């Protein structure tokens, strides 16, 4: 009975990415214990790469969006057409992300827990929306649900059409983030709950879902971010009707075409902020719900 208590380990939390470049520069040539400068070199390369590929373009975009000053930025973002496009994009994306959260979890569940003929094929099919050029998806959906629909379903130039297209391209996110967690899930935990008298519904709600939640949340977040920025798959079936089915990416394209790059950049920055904020909040949420389970032996 004199078993010792393990120290309450701090959960492993990834270092904030913003810290990486700063540390790389401040510790440039210094040798750290363990590796002959390898660590500093690694940080340096990563910092440089992230700066070139992500931070610099984002900074350029942000600067560009303020070409016409703060008022110009505000005017561009709050233009009725821009707001409408933002509203359509975010509205449809939220719905699609939520649908994905449920259906993606269900698909992952069936793929992991059930056995049926053709399982491997179905499993491989999940990745197809990743591999397919999104414009191909758009053509496929247009031929199926467009004006000449062979099955009599006409979703062309409707928000339903947008939703179907976005659901198609974002399908893999939740499935692929939930699947590995489901595979690793300890079946004995469910058996323990059953032995304590829990019904299958209760087991799923009280025992399985809390373990899946972080994966579902992060998958949903990725699906949402992808949906918000999607262009190729909606360009044909969406119809690009302003205030109806025009999504932000199409609106931005339109601004470029009418030669107002500052407005395009401003709306882009607004979209970027929404995406970033969403991912950030979901990330914090997922980390919090994961924290208790962390440091498990």
């Amino acid at each position, binding site marked *: *009975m*004199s*078993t*010792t*208590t*393990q120290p*309450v*380990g701090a959960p492993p939390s990834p270092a904030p990415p913003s810290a990486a470049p700063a540390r790389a520069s401040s510790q440039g040539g210094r040798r750290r214990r363990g590796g002959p400068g390898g660590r500093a070199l690694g940080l340096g390369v990563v910092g440089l790469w992230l700066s070139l590929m992500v931070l610099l373009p984002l900074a350029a975009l942000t600067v560009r969006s303020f070409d016409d000053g703060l008022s110009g930025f505000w005017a561009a973002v709050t233009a009725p057409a821009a707001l409408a496009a933002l509203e359509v994009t975010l509205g449809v994306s939220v719905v699609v992300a939520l649908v994905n959260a449920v259906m993606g979890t269900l698909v992952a569940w069936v793929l992991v827990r059930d056995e049926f003929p053709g399982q491997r094929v179905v499993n491989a099919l999940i990745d197809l929306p990743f591999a397919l050029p999104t414009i191909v998806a758009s053509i496929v959906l247009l031929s199926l649900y467009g004006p000449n629909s062979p099955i009599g379903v006409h979703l062309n130039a409707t928000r339903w059409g947008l939703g179907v297209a976005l659901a198609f391209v974002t399908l893999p996110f939740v499935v692929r983030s939930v699947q590995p967690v489901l595979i690793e899930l*300890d079946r*004995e*935990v469910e*058996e*323990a*709950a*059953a*032995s*304590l*008298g*829990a*019904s299958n519904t*209760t087991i799923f709600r*009280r*025992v399985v879902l*809390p*373990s899946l939640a972080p994966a579902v949340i992060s998958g949903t977040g990725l699906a949402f971010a992808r949906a918000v920025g999607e262009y190729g798959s909606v360009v044909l079936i969406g119809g690009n009707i302003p205030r109806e089915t025009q999504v932000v990416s199409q609106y931005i394209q339109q601004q470029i075409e009418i030669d107002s790059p500052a407005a395009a950049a401003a709306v882009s920055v607004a979209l970027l902020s929404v995406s970033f904020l969403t991912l950030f909040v979901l990330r914090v949420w997922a980390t919090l*719900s994961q924290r*208790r*389970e*962390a*440091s*498990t*032996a």
Partner: protein
Amino acid sequence: MITVTDARKTYGDFVALDDVSLEIPAGSLTALLGPSGSGKSTLLRSIAGLEDLDGGNVRIDGEDVTHQPPQHRGIGFVFQHYAAFKHMTVRDNVAFGLTIRRRPKAEVARKVDDLLEIVGLDGFQHRYPAQLSGGQRQRMALARALAVDPQVLLLDEPFGALDAKVRADLRRWLRRLHDEVHVTTVLVTHDQEEALDVADRIAVLNKGRIEQVGDPVSLYERPENDFVMSFLGAVSRLGDRLVRPHDIVLERDHATAASRQAAEGAVGPLVAARVDRVVRLGFEVRIELTADDGERFVAQVTRAEAERRRYTAGEDVVAWALRSEEPVGAGPVA
């Protein structure tokens, strides 16, 4: 009381349970002991309803539960790897069975506090399983299983994942707990020492069949076959017989050995052997020998005996056994 009748379970060609029948008396602490693949865990999981039998039936306190799901069998189950609800605190883990039954909050709180005190985890209510040691997690799992007042408590290698010291502490603690709570308990283990230490009845399983059932002393003293003999406790092969190492007596010459064996009323072979090594293990001294037919065996003597006789490596001796069963049969020896 648990009654298992003609339980049969196969996985493809593998027969996990080969028409097993077993009675487990109410209030007993019974160990199912056997090597891996002997069917002991399958038998336990069948009693719990976590495994469906292909044939036979299971009764708990007279009620046929063969086709009942685990939810309705009135069992508590403890797993080797704790099966803790990692996202719940210790309190919520233990309370789980009660909260899903929608018992009044005050009753749940009182019961959980009582159980946590019994298992020695009071003060750990608000910890998460990840913040507990293995031994503490297993005690939490026990409290969780006991919270629903099970008719039977089923433990599947409960101490298997713990280190030796904690394991020994915990099984003594389990024995004391059982003496207090008196719930019919079945414990699966592959560790004969654990079975002998904690159980008041042992069923030895091998290849999906029950070899022998009895209390620890009778199983150790009067094993019905070679398998039980060699699985419960150490054995040495002396001539054509299996004997306990501590029953072996070593003499300097054949005549002394023969006369002492006759004086003790013992039967069995006298085996000439050479001492290979003398190992002092605290109170006991283990003597490793090679018989003149090349068979290696081990004798165990007390420290006092070893000091009196001063066995040394390279010495020739004649070994005989105080007690031995009938000559070794054709049965396999583990």
